[in-house]
């Protein structure tokens, strides 16, 4: 059991525990904080997988943006102090059953499947160097905006339009309509 494996197991335990607490906590603010911890744990996992850029994006966008947004909305709807209502009994039972069934099913499928790497083994030096070198910011940036094969400029543009639409949509939905003048 090497050190990285130990790190991985600690990280995954942290992630799963935080997620569980996030969905079962009775106070909404705490639930948001547990979510924050979960997302940070996932960022740590990305660091462990040596995808630093993605981890940074995770922290900046998810933790710094979305969780903050959630906390804003909690304050806007004046919910922070009170306890959350208890979930409906029947539904909770069935949901636990469904989630466990789904989890078991998926794990069974995963265990029976043999994942074959498409390229050479990742821990050979030459490949590892090129792979590790492959996931840096420069490569990501170049490939994101390239128009050749494996270029992602079209989805990039589409995403920007999507963000524009989402922005306009949010404003429209959350707008207070002016009362009619008599």
């Amino acid at each position, binding site marked *: 059991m090497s050190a990285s494996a130990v790190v991985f197991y600690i990280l995954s335990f942290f992630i799963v525990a935080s997620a569980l607490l996030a969905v079962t906590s009775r106070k909404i603010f705490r639930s948001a904080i547990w979510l924050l911890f979960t997302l940070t744990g996932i960022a740590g996992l990305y660091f462990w997988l040596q995808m630093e850029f993605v981890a940074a994006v995770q922290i900046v966008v998810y933790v710094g943006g979305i969780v903050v947004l959630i906390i804003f909305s909690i304050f806007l709807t004046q919910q922070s102090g009170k306890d959350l209502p208890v979930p409906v009994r029947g*539904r909770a039972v*069935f*949901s636990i059953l*469904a989630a466990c*069934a*789904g989890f078991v*099913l998926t794990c069974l*499928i995963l265990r029976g499947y043999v994942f074959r790497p498409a390229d050479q083994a990742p821990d050979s030096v030459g490949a590892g160097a090129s792979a590790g070198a492959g996931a840096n910011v420069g490569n990501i940036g170049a490939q994101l905006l390239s128009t050749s094969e494996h270029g992602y400029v079209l989805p990039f543009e589409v995403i920007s339009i999507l963000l524009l639409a989402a922005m306009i949509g949010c404003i429209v939905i959350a707008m207070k309509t002016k009362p009619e003048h008599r």
Partner: protein
Amino acid sequence: MPNAAYILLIPLLPLAGFVLLGLFGRKYFRRSAGLLGTGVVLVSAALALWVAWQYFSAGHAAGHYGQTVPVRLRWLNFSPGLSIDMSVILDPISVMMLFVVTFISLMVHIFSLGYMKGEARYATYYAFLNLFTFSMLGLVMAGNIFETYIFWELVGCSSFLLIGYYYDRPTAVAAAKKAFIVTRFADLGFLIGILILSFYSGSLDIQTLVRRLATPGSPLTEITTASFLGISMLSWGLGLVFVGGAGKSALFPLHIWLPDAMEGPTPVSALIHAATMVVAGVYLVARLYFVYINFDHVAVLQIILWVGAISALLAAIIACTQTDIKRVLAYSTMSQIGYMMLALGTFHPVGEATTLGYTAAMFHLFTHAFFKALLFLCAGVIIHRVHSNEMEDMGGLRKSLPLTHICFLIGCLAIAGIPPFAGFFSKEDILLAAWDANKAVYYIGVFTSGLTAFYMFRLYFSVFWRRPAREVGGHHGDGGHREAPFTMKLPLVILSLGAVFAGFVPFSSLVTYDGTPQEGHGIGLFAVFPVTVAAIGLGIAAYLYRTASDRPERAASALKGLYRFAYHKFYIDEVYLFITKKIIFNFIGRPAAWIDRKIVDGLMNGLAAVTAWVSAAIKRLQSGKVQDYALYFFAGITGLAILFIYIYT
């Protein structure tokens, strides 16, 4: 032979009249409906007379009156031999009936011009009369036994419509219902009889059927051997056909509808329930006579003989006690039809005058049509004047209704069988046939003819001679009131001429069962006994009823029990009512209604209730909550995943 087109016109003209008056009568023919209806029947009568003239002169020249089928239209073909055709048959009795039906119908149409004047539904009345004329003509001309059945039902339907003409009177409605139901019930027998006869003879055409069933030793001998409950199938068939005829002809015990049918207008009673429809049963038996007299089946003829005799006697006894003028005439009709039936039943395999019964029955039908219609129309005039049907309200009318008085007297003399009026000749023929067949029936016939004379003259003297108990009619201001309009007097005169002279028609040389003329036989001394009995009856009636006295009441109290029985029509109606109300309603009607309500309806309602319950139970799935829907969604996906991954590998 006359052209087929003219023969077809005879029934089709009244049909056209019916359609016109039925569809447009109320709007366009409000006042002229009577003239239109009468005109149509006038043309039909003229055509019928011409056809009869042609037929009988041609037959006279040939020495034989044959049976021809001038028109045949194939209609429903079930199999090569079995088909329902619309065909016309011409033989002595059908031609005679054509003439009788159209002539009496014409008289009734003319009479109704005056009698029904001012009625609200004048056009409807003439439409129904035309419908009846068409149906009756179709019945007598039908050459296919199913065609007969169709017209049979049509006649019943017209009778229903006309009896219930005053539909706002509950008694009229009940009477129409009763007539229809009783005759319908009898027609069930008729239909089964038709099916049996046509099955065994393989044909529905009357000529073919009669030929196949009547020749002994024909290849269809299986009929005589096939049997049900010990009686051969042919007897069943003929007996059931006779049941149908007995219902329509109001023979015992299916006679209960005829007295009630007097609720209809009086001209209707004259036409339908005296002269034409009620003789349909007699006509039916005569039409199939060859099959009836096939000597293996004399048993059915015995039934016919005795049913006729009993009906004649029973009706005569009841008529002696009735006080409603139309009821007396109705029972007298029943009695005379009994005579006709018993004449048909007098076939005797050996002896000379074996088929005199056929001729006698048809002769009596012919003369009876005249004098019975005459009597009913006179009754119509009387009722029109007195505005009541009861004999107590009448009396001493011979001064105010002189013409009616003479006509009624002629009718009574004719029906009593006094020579030389028409009824004498036909009744003597019947009694002669009965003498040869069965002496007991002969004596019943003679006794009944005495009763006939008695009750008819009881009626005559009570209406025209006896001073009434109270004066009636004075408040109607009839000082200058004429007796009756011309349209009502003309048919009376014509019919009385018929009642006087119809007896002189040489019937036995014109109408016989096989078409060969038989020379007329002298009646002679044989007639003395019945005429004397009739004269005695007349005398007793005169003694009791000519002047107002209490002699009738004393006579009635002397015969206490019998009088009471006869007055209540032998309680036969009560028996029928008991059977229908207590037995049929309770044991068949109520359980059937219960099954319909609880089981059939319950099944349907239960189905609906189950559907509603299931729907209420599953509507809770539609909770409106997003998370429930997500759960169903996810559960479905999991289920499908398990299904496809593990079960369908």
